[in-house]
């Protein structure tokens, strides 16, 4: 259950122009809160507000958000956080790929923009909370502490991308969709019922600042191309690529290796080495990981003292897996009960205790089952 407020709060609703955040804002207003809508202008190119280029932060989305705010009957503003977004999310995204890792910009945006830059400004201006359309639940413990839990509907749960929030951030977060046991169609129906024109709007791309969804093209335009070797596990060259940064551990498609592997099995990206611009490929079983280390841990509450058993989620739409985890000198050591496949450094490992988010950290290294030692990502 979403926490029922004792008193109406002054709530700043982040409205992307999509259906989820519009319904979230409407629910917050209906619950009696004093809600103000804000659309974040995040485009690196402010001109896109005039030319109407597609993407998350286009003028069309800003208008859709404003239209929704008007229907809900709340004030609405556009805040320009493009510079912060570029520094904290886009530049970080590019640098991570350049280093051979696979970042999750949505986590970064929640950590640094929505629940940092935006929240700080909201609090300074006298707001009590920031409301978003994420599917997750904040539970207030008996001692007043806050816990982040998975959404009631596991299929829509987005607690993974919120796993970076600490308790202070959670104390000012409001997710009115978190206890929704409904399908996306039902959210759309609710939007329709509320007179929100965004009810029929298509879902946005995963990465809002890559309007056409072509991550490789985006990276190539920022990092240029640099031809390098694709090698197999023995180091034999099997093909070439146009930039190691364009690959993700576990990737199978787009390798463009002319001849099949000797055993005829599909080959996957096993390793990315930006230093010598080499991509290593091999069979699926070589992707099996038994353990990982992760850095920059963030805890939704107090950090766990000793080793413990948790479930872990390793990517945005991934499943749960049993692990034991321990924090040693600021580095999180995670051991899998059963090997898991395709763990990409740069992604977050989010630890759960039941439905409760314990914390998260950025995957740094993995231990493959086929190897004795750790492979640097």
């Amino acid at each position, binding site marked *: 259950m979403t926490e029922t407020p004792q008193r109406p709060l002054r709530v700043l609703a982040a409205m992307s122009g999509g259906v989820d955040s519009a319904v979230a804002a409407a629910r917050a207003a209906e619950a009696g809160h004093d809600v*103000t809508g804000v*659309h974040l*202008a995040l485009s690196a190119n402010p001109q896109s507000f005039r030319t109407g280029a597609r993407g998350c932060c286009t*003028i069309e989305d*800003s208008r859709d958000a404003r239209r929704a705010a008007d229907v809900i009957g709340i004030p609405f503003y556009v*805040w320009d956080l493009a510079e912060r977004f570029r520094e904290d999310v886009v530049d970080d995204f590019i640098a991570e790929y350049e280093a051979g890792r696979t970042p999750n910009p949505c986590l970064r945006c929640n950590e640094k923009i929505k629940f940092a830059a935006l929240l*700080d*400004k909201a609090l300074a*201006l006298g707001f009590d909370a920031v409301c978003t359309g994420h599917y997750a639940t904040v539970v207030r413990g008996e001692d007043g502490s806050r816990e982040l839990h998975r959404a009631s509907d596991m299929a829509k749960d987005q607690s993974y991308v919120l796993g970076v929030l600490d308790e202070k951030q959670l104390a000012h977060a409001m997710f009115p969709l978190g206890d929704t046991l409904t399908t996306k169609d039902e959210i759309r129906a609710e939007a329709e019922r509320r007179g929100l024109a965004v009810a029929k709007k298509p879902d946005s791309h995963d990465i809002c600042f890559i309007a056409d969804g072509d991550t490789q093209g985006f990276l190539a335009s920022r990092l240029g191309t640099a031809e390098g070797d694709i090698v197999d596990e023995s180091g034999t060259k099997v093909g070439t690529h146009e930039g190691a940064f364009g690959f993700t551990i576990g990737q199978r498609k787009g390798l463009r290796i002319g001849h099949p592997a000797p055993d005829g099995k599909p080959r996957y990206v096993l390793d990315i080495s930006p230093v010598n611009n080499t991509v290593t490929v091999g069979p699926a079983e070589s992707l099996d990981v038994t353990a990982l280390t992760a850095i920059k841990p963030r805890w939704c509450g107090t950090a766990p003292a000793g080793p413990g058993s948790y479930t872990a989620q390793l990517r945005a739409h991934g499943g749960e897996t049993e692990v034991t985890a321990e924090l040693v000198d600021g580095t999180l050591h995670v051991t899998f009960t059963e090997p898991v496949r395709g763990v990409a450094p740069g992604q977050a490992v989010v630890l759960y205790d039941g439905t409760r988010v314990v914390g998260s950290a950025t995957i740094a290294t993995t231990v493959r089952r086929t190897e004795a030692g750790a492979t640097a990502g």
Partner: protein
Amino acid sequence: MAYLDHAATTPMLPEAIEAMTAQLAVTGNASSLHAAGRRARRTVEESRETLADALGARPSEVVFTSGGTEADNLAVKGLYWARRDADPRRTRVLASPVEHHAVLDAVDWLAEHEGANVEYLPVDRHGRVHPDVLREAILRDPADVALVTVMWANNEIGTIMPVRELADVAREFDVPMHADAVQAFGQLEVDFARSGLAAMTVSGHKIGGPIGIGALLLGREYAPVPVLHGGGQERHVRSGTLDVPAIASFALAGRLAADGHEEFARGIGGLRDELVAAVRAAVPDAVLGGDPAPGGRLPANAHFTFPGCEGDSLLLLLDAQGIECSTGSACTAGIAQPSHVLLATGATPDLARGTLRFSLGHTSTRQDIDEVARAIGPAVERARTAGLS
């Protein structure tokens, strides 16, 4: 509630509403030859005469448009095209850098698409173009100047331009000058004949008339190339069926605006002075924008820069308390940009973001001022905490 954004739009006068609604029930296209058409035409022509009289112009010099933006576009583009057609050397456009976007963007469009060579005339720290500056600019080559456009009074900071002196300079070189008088009309004496202007823009909804109607006052000797082609209405300069109800209402509001401007300046100007004093008392380091001399600025305008604040934050905080004003910098997408007016007067970009414009009007009361006086200090303090993110 305190509505202090009359420069954006001001409530319609009851008389103007009455005049408009009365005409809404009457059928007639003013271009038709039958009785209904004649009746509509009579209303239009009487309104034209009324507005011409209110503005010191001849009736034939009134060209009705859909508003200020269209009138500005017609003047700037139309005169540019006509002057260049008459002599291809005339491609230089002299404009103030503090113009409304309806002029600024039209001028920039001419530069991008029509080979115009745009020169922005430097302004002083109050945002004023001096006649000597204009003379100097024209003298660089009097033969290649297509037109001059300088607004009568600035919509953001309220600075009044020496329009008559500027027009004198332009006329000395036979260069037509246009002035956007949208903000001046109703607050100052605006006399087209005495101004010496070739063209002048006025708008209905800034003087208590309806939105969607305006006029370009256009000297009889000028024939700008039309922007809108069609039925040949309005001296073949502006085609389109005339909006009789809006025209009747606009003319009446114009009559009242011209007759009442002195009283307006006294009464509303007095309230404005109280507002300025109240804001300064609450926020001692607030900087009054534009000309501090009461005679040098629009009587209904109070513009401030609050160092260390973002105008958007202030707007939100005041809006939440029912005080409606503006940051002064309009933008379609609603993204705060540093005001081009402030930048032109030499303000730094950070300062130019922390602005608020309070504009008073015929419904303003002392209670509005009291509300601002109470709210502005805490709002500025809070906005400073939020900072310039």
